[in-house]
């Protein structure tokens, strides 16, 4: 008996005899040797080949976001798991924890969603500070903060300073979402004393390239993955055991006090009642 065929459509790829397909392009004839790694990453996520100047912006992003101190929590996680000597599971775990996290690429999805909403409301009035401040105030009546703002541990996001210079050089600072982002930054600074971070700037630049918030999340994750490899590879090779198990002296305990389980208590009572009373001292045998 022949089963009815289950099918699924894909725009991704096909394995041919002498040539392969990738998102509508012949791999050997059109992609290999001409498209950069960054361009292929963008093609994989957006399904389209980005113009060379967009790819250059993505390279700027990958460079500027390289904040890879081993103490940064997702990277520390990668090192902790790499302590057993295998880099890839540790890298996979590091990338996995990015999904929906309150720091890292997931925040750019939320920042992009917020920026889209602000952009729809502000429209072409980004130059009117009163309008923008009014929109921000109304937003903050129902939201406790704006995604893409806040710079923990320092007064401003040094990456953003560097990124803004890159975007000005590339003429990206005059594009619609970027202009809304700049206007928003002024208003949020004034209303909440909160500084913009890289998340809102990445959202602006990538929205101006025509990406959706979900594509932005995936692309930023891909553009940040090199840092996980840095720590996965280094920590797996070092593998000196420091992070496999911390010495007890470096641990504190803040859980429940010692206690006996109901069954242990019942067993003790049962045993106590079953044991004959101890012979009185001095009594006769």
């Amino acid at each position: 008996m022949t089963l009815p065929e289950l099918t699924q459509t894909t725009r991704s790829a096909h394995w041919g005899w002498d040539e392969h397909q990738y998102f509508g392009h012949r791999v050997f004839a059109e992609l290999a040797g001409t498209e950069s790694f960054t361009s292929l990453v963008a093609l994989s996520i957006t399904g389209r080949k980005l113009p060379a100047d967009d790819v250059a912006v993505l390279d700027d992003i990958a460079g500027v976001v390289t904040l890879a101190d081993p103490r940064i929590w997702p990277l520390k996680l990668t090192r902790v798991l790499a302590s057993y000597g295998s880099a890839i599971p540790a890298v996979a775990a590091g990338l996995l924890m990015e999904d929906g996290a309150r720091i890292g690429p997931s925040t750019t999805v939320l920042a992009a969603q917020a920026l889209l909403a602000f952009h729809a409301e502000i429209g072409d009035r980004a130059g009117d500070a009163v309008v923008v401040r009014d929109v921000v105030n109304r937003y903050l009546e129902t939201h406790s903060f704006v995604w893409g703002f806040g710079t923990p541990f320092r007064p401003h996001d040094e990456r953003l300073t560097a990124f803004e210079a890159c975007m000005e050089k590339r003429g990206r600072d005059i594009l619609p979402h970027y202009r809304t982002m700049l206007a928003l930054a002024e208003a949020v600074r004034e209303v909440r004393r909160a500084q913009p971070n890289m998340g809102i700037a990445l959202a602006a630049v990538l929205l101006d390239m025509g990406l959706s918030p979900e594509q932005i999340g995936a692309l930023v994750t891909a553009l940040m993955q090199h840092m996980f490899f840095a720590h996965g590879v280094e920590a797996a090779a070092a593998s000196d055991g420091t992070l496999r198990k911390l010495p007890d002296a470096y641990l504190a305990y803040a859980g429940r006090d010692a206690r006996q389980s109901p069954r242990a208590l019942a067993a003790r009572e049962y045993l106590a009642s079953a044991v004959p009373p101890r012979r009185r001292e001095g009594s006769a045998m």
Partner: protein
Amino acid sequence: MSPASVEVLDGPLENDTFPERLTAHVVTPGDRPKIHGYDVEADLTLHYEPHDLLYLSLVGELPDPSASAALAVVLTFLAPLSVAHAPGHGALLSHLCGATSTATIGVAAIGLAEHARSQVEDHQDLFAWLEAGRAGVPERHVARTPGDVAAVGRLTAAVDRTGFHAPVLEHRPTALAASLAMLHVLGLQRPEQLVTALVTARLPVAVAEALAVRPVDFRSYPINLPRFRYERA
């Protein structure tokens, strides 16, 4: 070759205060481990089963005897997840490719966590109904097919034997809704508690299913299930 010099650098993390120690909240560090205060080696080992430890770990307290027995029933009911489902299928592909068993276990765990998350999300109205204590299980969670009705009957009979009173089963929810509702009634109510229970129940079978295929026996795998239709962009 001379050793690399260590530079003294300054940055935001050098100018803040952080604790010196990592804090444990569940397992006491050291030679005589306790879980939420109960001595593992001299108490829990002697008097409790692994499913009680699952409950203790997630809830912070031990289940009473009838809840313990009911939990064992529900976890067993939830365990079988065939290779038709993405977690087992994904893990099978991992082992087929000759991945390490640790990688395959990791793949299975990720798949199971995603699967459990989607199931828990899909039953939010059921949990809201349970918490509100209203009459009548949400319509979409009522058992309809003969197979589902029979399965819920078997679950009800098994739970009845434990002495645990579960009125929710009288509403004849689907087998999955009944199992999730039981976990909720037993005290596993937060999404992360439910997901952990589901993953724990299913991980052994998902891994076992994966390990049953022969690594790199690519011709034994139905590569065109489903058949992909390549659409030119």
